[in-house]
């Protein structure tokens, strides 16, 4: 079943040029997609458009049959789409718990938020242990767990992770990808944008290649991994 569909999305910043020049993609529910491509291909921009942080100039976004084009971020969050931005984007002077509470900002029921926070702390026990600590005192990996945890407070059906391994040591990146595995098992649809293309594709069902603001290629992640041209361009050929 297709849960998210974007048709011919065109978008850019301010009065600048188009960064996205017509991206069309159908996302199957419960699958994991990894978007790869060179710098400036528009990967992060695409996620911003889906989450309502950047308006599209053209095109249509449908999610679970509803036309989300032109919706505000808070409406899109309530509908079940969450973004985990690339710089982890936490509230540095707030405690871990306050950060998680901000994850439920669009919900009005405080009890529900508290219950969801408890669930998140089961997935990421470290967040429960450090709940009273300021977010800026956490390590890089813990901050990424908090950023993902904050998105999970809304129990999204679609979670989008922008460069989850950015700036993390390989061992920590692996932990983060292990936690993505948990999201997949919970039945969430996941879209990952990843510089470390190999790692991203290995975690994914489908691979999408973006280039110059267009999707140039989509295939099963295993096939993308084995594609010789892709290997040369994005994966650093293994001999």
């Amino acid at each position, binding site marked *: 079943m297709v849960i998210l569909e974007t048709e011919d999305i065109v978008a850019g910043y*301010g009065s600048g040029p188009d960064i996205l020049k017509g991206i069309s993609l159908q996302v199957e529910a419960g699958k994991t997609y990894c978007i790869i491509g060179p710098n400036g291909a528009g990967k992060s921009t695409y996620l911003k458009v889906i*989450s309502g*942080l950047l308006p599209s100039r053209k095109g249509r976004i449908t999610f679970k049959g509803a036309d989300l084009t032109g919706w*505000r*971020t*808070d409406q899109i*969050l*309530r509908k079940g789409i969450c*973004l985990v*931005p690339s*710089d982890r*984007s*936490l*509230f*540095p*002077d*707030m405690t871990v718990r*306050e950060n998680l*509470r*901000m*994850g439920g*900002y*669009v919900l009005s029921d405080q009890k529900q938020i508290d219950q969801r926070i408890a669930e998140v702390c089961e997935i990421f026990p470290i967040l429960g242990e450090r709940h009273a600590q300021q977010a800026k005192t956490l390590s890089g990996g813990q901050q990424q767990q908090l950023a993902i945890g*904050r998105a999970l407070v809304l129990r999204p059906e679609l979670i989008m992770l922008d460069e989850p391994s950015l700036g993390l040591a390989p061992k920590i990146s692996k932990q983060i990808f292990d936690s993505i595995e948990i999201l997949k098992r919970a039945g969430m649809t996941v879209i990952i944008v990843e510089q470390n293309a190999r790692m991203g594709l290995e975690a994914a069902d489908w691979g999408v290649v973006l280039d110059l603001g267009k999707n140039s290629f989509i295939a099963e992640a295993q096939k993308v991994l084995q594609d010789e041209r892709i290997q040369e361009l994005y994966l650093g050929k293994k001999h």
Partner: protein
Amino acid sequence: MTQISQIIILGLSLGGVFALMSSGMTLIFGVMRIVNLAHAAFIVMAAYIAYWAFKLLGMDPILSIVITIPVMYLFGLLVYRVLFAKLIDNPRFVELTVLITFGLSLVIEGLLSYFFTGIYRSTTPRYATDTLNFGPFYFPEGQFYATVVSIILLVGLWALLRYTRLGYAIRATTQNRTAAKTVGVNVHQISMITFGLGTALAGASGSLVSFLFTFFPAKHMEWVTIILALIVLGGMGSLIGSLVGSFLLSALAAYVSFNFGPTWSPITFYLALFLILLFRPQGLFGKKMELQ
């Protein structure tokens, strides 16, 4: 010893009011990066409201905060809507706000001069000139009440920021605008409300200073410098910083005034502003501004 303690008490009893005067400006800077040079002009405006409420209605100036707070809140929303709403995404926003708010302060000064002339005014409730005695120490009664009211309002502001949904949204917007947008905070709306809140704090300050100091339309020039000194010492955008800065500097000013004469008291603030900018531009609690 008693003498020094008395001087410090005098300084501290003004500190609460200075803290209230500066809190609105630092709040607005923290959330929106608006350097509101018209903040003191807003205080003067509110002082005039308190003055006319006192003269025409016989209203107690402390009580007049029930007028100045809501009126200035609405005025703040209007100013934000008209002057800043469209500029907020401009890359040179901070510089623009300095110029715009400076211009705004001159417009307010001009209008106040036109309508109310440049005559020195102040409200004169009974307590403005009385003193309270506590053992060997005395408090000017007006300063004492004003500081108590200021502290109550500041605690209220703190509780609002700390415990309410609006407060969470304001703090989130202050700390990371992008992240706030990501979790669904309408940062434009929050900015507007925060500007209103900051202006409302100027409103309350205006009521209180109306009986502590004499004022006239151009008085805001002196006050804005003092406020800048306080919040720069504390760290721009840090509320706790502006509180600590206010108490430190007002105690210091009282001390200087006693030892070197009252003319030197305002100079304490200007000199402090100069020295802080020279040696610790981020203030006591501020973060170093990142160069972009």
